[in-house]
């Protein structure tokens, strides 16, 4: 059964149509990767699902009903790309996390819950009193994830959450994303322009090109035997091993 479902969604800013009738399902417990070049509309798709972008036509459904946009119940949560913009510099880690909690808890219960959430993202409970300025980029992204989890979401939208991180840290955050799915059974829309990263975390991939989904399928199939021309271009552009034909063109010289 699909949890989050985009049905023929269009988003227009003025005369500029950013999403052109996009349909996509994220099934329960599934991680769907969303890839495409910048400006193709990846972020807009996620933002539309949480009411941050205006849906011109179409529907975004959660378990068959419109995604709630009012009240404390917010089962769709989003994590953003820039670790330096995603936490209020004046709020402690604990305050940021507590703000997203669904229920009002007593002080004791709240602290216990913060500690539980921090543990989920492999951070020490003592971090709750720290301001973001004392955290590294990777630690900030963990806190942002913990904040998203505090709302007890059914779906998490992760928009390029590792793109701004150093490679040494990116791996740890990716491991965490996989752990969370395994341990919590979360559904996730995982946006990235890095195909190797998507390959590592997603079971299905959608390829977005100029506001349209041009290819969708199981990750291994889409990346292993791409059918759309654009997907092939994307895959050919990846640096690294297995792409020896290109390595030749880059190194060939006088």
């Amino acid at each position, binding site marked *: 059964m699909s949890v989050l479902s985009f049905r023929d969604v269009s988003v227009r800013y003025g005369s500029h149509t950013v999403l052109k009738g996009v349909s996509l399902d994220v099934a329960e417990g599934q991680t769907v990767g969303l890839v495409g*070049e910048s400006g193709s509309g990846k972020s807009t798709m996620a933002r539309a699902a*949480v*009411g941050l972008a205006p849906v011109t036509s179409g529907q975004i459904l959660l378990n068959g009903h419109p995604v709630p946009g009012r009240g*404390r*119940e*917010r089962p769709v*949560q989003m994590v*953003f*790309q820039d670790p330096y*913009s*995603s*936490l*209020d510099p*004046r*709020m402690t880690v604990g305050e940021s996390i507590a*703000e*997203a909690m669904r229920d009002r808890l007593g002080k004791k219960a709240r602290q216990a819950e913060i500690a539980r959430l921090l543990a989920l993202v*492999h*951070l020490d409970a003592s971090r709750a009193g720290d301001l973001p300025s004392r955290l*590294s980029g*990777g*630690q900030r992204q*963990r806190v*942002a994830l913990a*904040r998203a989890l505090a*709302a007890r979401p059914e779906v998490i939208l992760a928009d390029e959450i590792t793109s701004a*991180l*150093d*490679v*040494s*840290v*990116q*791996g*740890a*955050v*990716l*491991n965490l994303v*996989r752990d969370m799915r395994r341990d919590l059974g979360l559904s996730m829309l995982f946006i990235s*322009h890095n195909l*190797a*990263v998507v*390959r590592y975390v997603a079971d299905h991939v959608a390829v977005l090109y100029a506001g349209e989904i041009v290819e969708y399928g199981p990750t291994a199939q889409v*990346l292993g035997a791409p059918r759309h021309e654009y997907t092939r*271009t*994307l895959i050919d*552009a*990846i*640096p*690294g*091993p*297995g*792409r020896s034909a*290109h*390595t030749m*063109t*880059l*190194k*060939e*010289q*006088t």
Partner: protein
Amino acid sequence: MRASRVLLRPVGFAGFGLLAVVLFVAVFGPVLWGDRAAVVETGNLLDGPSAEHWIGTDNLGRDLFSRVLVAARLSIVLALAATAISMVLGIVLGAAPMLVGRRLGRLITAGVNVLVAFPGVLLVLFFAVIFGVGARGAALAVGLAGAPAFARLCHTLVAAVSERDYIAAARIAGVSKIRVLVRHVLPNIAEPLIVNATMAAGGVLLTFAGLSFLGLGVQAPDYDWGKLMQDGLNGIYVHPLAALGPGIAVVLAGLAFNLTGEAFAAAFGIGETSGRVRREAPATADREHAVAAPEPGAVLSVGDLRVTIPGAQNPIRAVRGVTFAVRDGEAVGVVGESGSGKSLTALAVARLIEQPIRVEADHLVFAGEDLMAGGDPESLRKRLGTSLAVVFQDPMTSFNPAHRVGPQLAEVSRFHQGLSRRAAFARAVDRLRAVKIREPERRARQYPFEFSGGMRQRAMIGMGLMGTPRLIIADEPTTALDVTVQRQVLELLAEVRRDTGAALLLISHDVSVVTDVCDRVLVMYAGRIVEELPAADLRTLARHPYTRALVAAVPDMETDLTRPLAVIPGLPVDPAHIPDGCAFAARCPLADDRCRAVEPPLLSSPAGDRVACHKAGQPLPADTVEVTA
């Protein structure tokens, strides 16, 4: 922390000192000098300055100096009240667009913009007439007149903060708009608002004095500085001090507010550099390499390069003795985490580092030219300009946003090759074409912001090609770009090198990119080179534990999906506090006591590879512990 920073500046010290005096007088003036200011001496009407009456007496023989001191309270209170009115109204109007609907919000913003365009004096007079003469009317008038400017400032600040992701996150979590405003927005715009209010208070003080001086403000028997000035005006030619005295008080108090505001602004401001730069004695203690001669046949030879940034407590040793060479036509990659000194190394080589950051080296030879030798920077840059090209991560910051792209490229040839304006522009167009920018004539006439990221990056490379470079230094040239665009830029670099035979120093945190493009790789950690090896060996034959961890941490299209990714535990070393021994020891699975005590030297193998590790090549424990990133 902050307070001490404010006070330590001369401006802050003067401002706070003055403000303390002014506030003291305002609070205690009426108590201390109130009686004296009220004493009527019929024998001394309109006296000039004397030992008893420093700036004379008024038409009832009252001591003017005392009256100036006593007037401080009313003047300051009125100024603060008016400022408070401006600020509160400004915040309400400035924050309203965020709370109300889009349409109403736009209306408010437009209204505020119209009001801001009115001359302030006009508004003050307009409101003063409406509210009638007297202290209260004047305070309302000045307060209202100041509100639009505050509203606009507030609106700009709110809009900037609203863009931040944490605001979106709070909204997504169901936090109400009002709560978002109170908890997230206001605290984050408080600093600039307070700074502005402080400075505005100084201006308001002046405006008030003006109103009272015109007779629109404070009325007898009350008096503020403006009223005193008005009273003194009649005798200005006989007893100038009677009018000037209160005037000086206005100026001093205004100055007190302004200087304090300035000091706050400077202390809160980012990127503001303090004038006090400590100069440390040259750090010669820990050179480990014997002075090496420049490598023959190399287009670039760097010997024991050190870059030191003066810090508050410790100097930050960002690059700590780096030695390497780039041979003619060769592509050398530099990898490492952010903060490892990659970019500073590149900038130092290009001589783009300025005071107070210090660059030292045994030698820094480029194309047979000693870059460390004195000589004026002007001619050095001129000689470097055409033979050394530099490409940065974010070309938006390297292009001047206010100038069109073509002329910016042309500038290089006019400066370095003495071409005419027209010839230089023609070459710029030609170079844009060479870097595969479509319709180069039209594009050359556009501004940088009209270019996409990939196009800007190509234009930047085009700028490097205005001459004939022998070396291209590229610092994360593709990090901000998409894979497809990244591929195009890398291919362009490769092609340029094919055509010109230029060597390349490519800095990247992306191991895959470096392996694809480069012949040799330097791995940097904590300001040192810890390993050097052929790019082809990076994935399989690296011997330093850091290099191996770095390679394993990056997923590629062949990564084993059944296992967690390798991670490097712990955090990079703080360059202000570099530990003894091996800098990587705290994160290294092989570290032992020797590692923590003795820094491993960078040793060369017969094949020319280098590695700095006591246990180079030893197998890593199978299960690397995972700790926080």
